[in-house]
């Protein structure tokens, strides 16, 4: 049967993409970020997940406001690399897992009443790819895991509530556990942490809030899930509301999940957090 073996919460700052592509990861300004992922990758090599479910948001590469899904699940064998306005990165196509996607769609819609939009064609961009770059570096053979995109509307209010995102994670866990094949799965919650990218408050960060969020995610996620969009945006910046996607990751783990790694680095305009749990 399917089993969730780990969860990762991490920021998906777009500037990380070109830093990887141009081999700048060891520059002093970036080294503290990339060094934090060395033990994470070693840990993942021990866990040997077959599939990563990546909870992310699109930034106008493949979803537009003509039609904007609240939750959308990739249900394809492959996902293309998207162009979000800066060109298409030279990365291998992402291999999906149709059987697992199909099972998740059935279980989430029939059993758990999450009426997802199902996507047979989905081009993924930095929200999805930067976490993959950090945790599952690709080689000439492609990516070391199959991956399933789960997109969340975190940009056009009304957004799903934190509570709803957490419950989606819980449903995801139950759905994975009823998958008949032996499959080890890691869930990644991406985005955040504190940042604001518009208005006079551009560049706002709040390390105190971010550290509190990391602590609560570990210690009392049920309570953290009741945080409102207003509270997140006031305390951590308008774009920090992406953090509700970390709640889906946490909901997919057992309440007793053990925290393994934790890191924080805020060089420019985004609090770049990292936290991992072993289920």
């Amino acid at each position: 049967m399917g089993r969730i073996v780990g969860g990762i919460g991490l920021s998906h700052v777009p500037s990380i993409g070109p830093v990887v592509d141009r081999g700048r990861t060891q520059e002093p300004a970036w080294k503290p970020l990339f060094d934090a992922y060395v033990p994470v990758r070693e840990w993942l090599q021990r866990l040997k997940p077959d599939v990563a479910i990546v909870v992310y948001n699109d930034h106008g590469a493949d979803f537009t406001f003509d039609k904007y899904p609240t939750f959308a699940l990739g249900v394809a064998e492959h996902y293309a690399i998207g162009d979000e306005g800066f060109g298409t990165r030279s990365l291998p196509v992402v291999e999906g897992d149709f059987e697992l996607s199909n099972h998740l769609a059935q279980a989430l819609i029939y059993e758990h009443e999450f009426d997802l939009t199902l996507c047979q064609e989905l081009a993924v961009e930095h929200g999805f790819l930067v976490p993959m770059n950090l945790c599952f570096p690709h080689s000439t053979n492609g990516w070391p895991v199959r991956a399933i995109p789960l997109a969340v509307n975190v940009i056009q209010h009304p957004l799903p509530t934190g509570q709803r995102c957490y419950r989606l994670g819980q449903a995801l866990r139950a759905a994975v556990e009823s998958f008949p094949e032996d499959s080890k799965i890691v869930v990644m919650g991406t985005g955040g942490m504190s940042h604001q990218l518009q208005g006079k408050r551009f560049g706002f960060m709040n390390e105190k809030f971010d550290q509190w969020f990391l602590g609560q995610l570990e210690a009392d996620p049920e309570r953290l899930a009741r945080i409102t969009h207003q509270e997140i945006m006031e305390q951590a910046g308008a774009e920090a509301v992406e953090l509700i996607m970390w709640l889906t990751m946490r909901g997919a783990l057992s309440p007793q999940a053990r925290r393994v790694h934790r890191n924080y680095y805020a060089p420019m305009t985004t609090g770049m957090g990292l936290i991992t749990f072993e289920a």
Partner: protein
Amino acid sequence: MGQQLTGPIADTTVFDLRLSRRGQRLNKLCAALCSPQERDAFKRDEEAFMSRFALTEAEKELIRRRDFEGLIEAGTNIYFLLKIGSVTGTGLYKMGAQMRGESYDEFLATRHIRGAV
């Protein structure tokens, strides 16, 4: 209802459905810039490019003036606005400096590690 967003946040534009509706034409223009051919078309003839999206004269003027704060207030989503930034050679941090009313160097001086760009 309404408990998620309870009131205005200082110096912040909340991109809600009403604002998205207002900015729909602008956001469609931005979304078109997700292809190299369309970016070339924008660079070749900005006026001709804008004329395809039924923008008001005021909206066109915001793009001509590279008024990023004005574009946000007119309903352009920040992540869509970045595509105009890219095609006009105005990266996120330059855009941000303008929105803060600072020069690029003044903005960079407020950052912890200014090399992380």
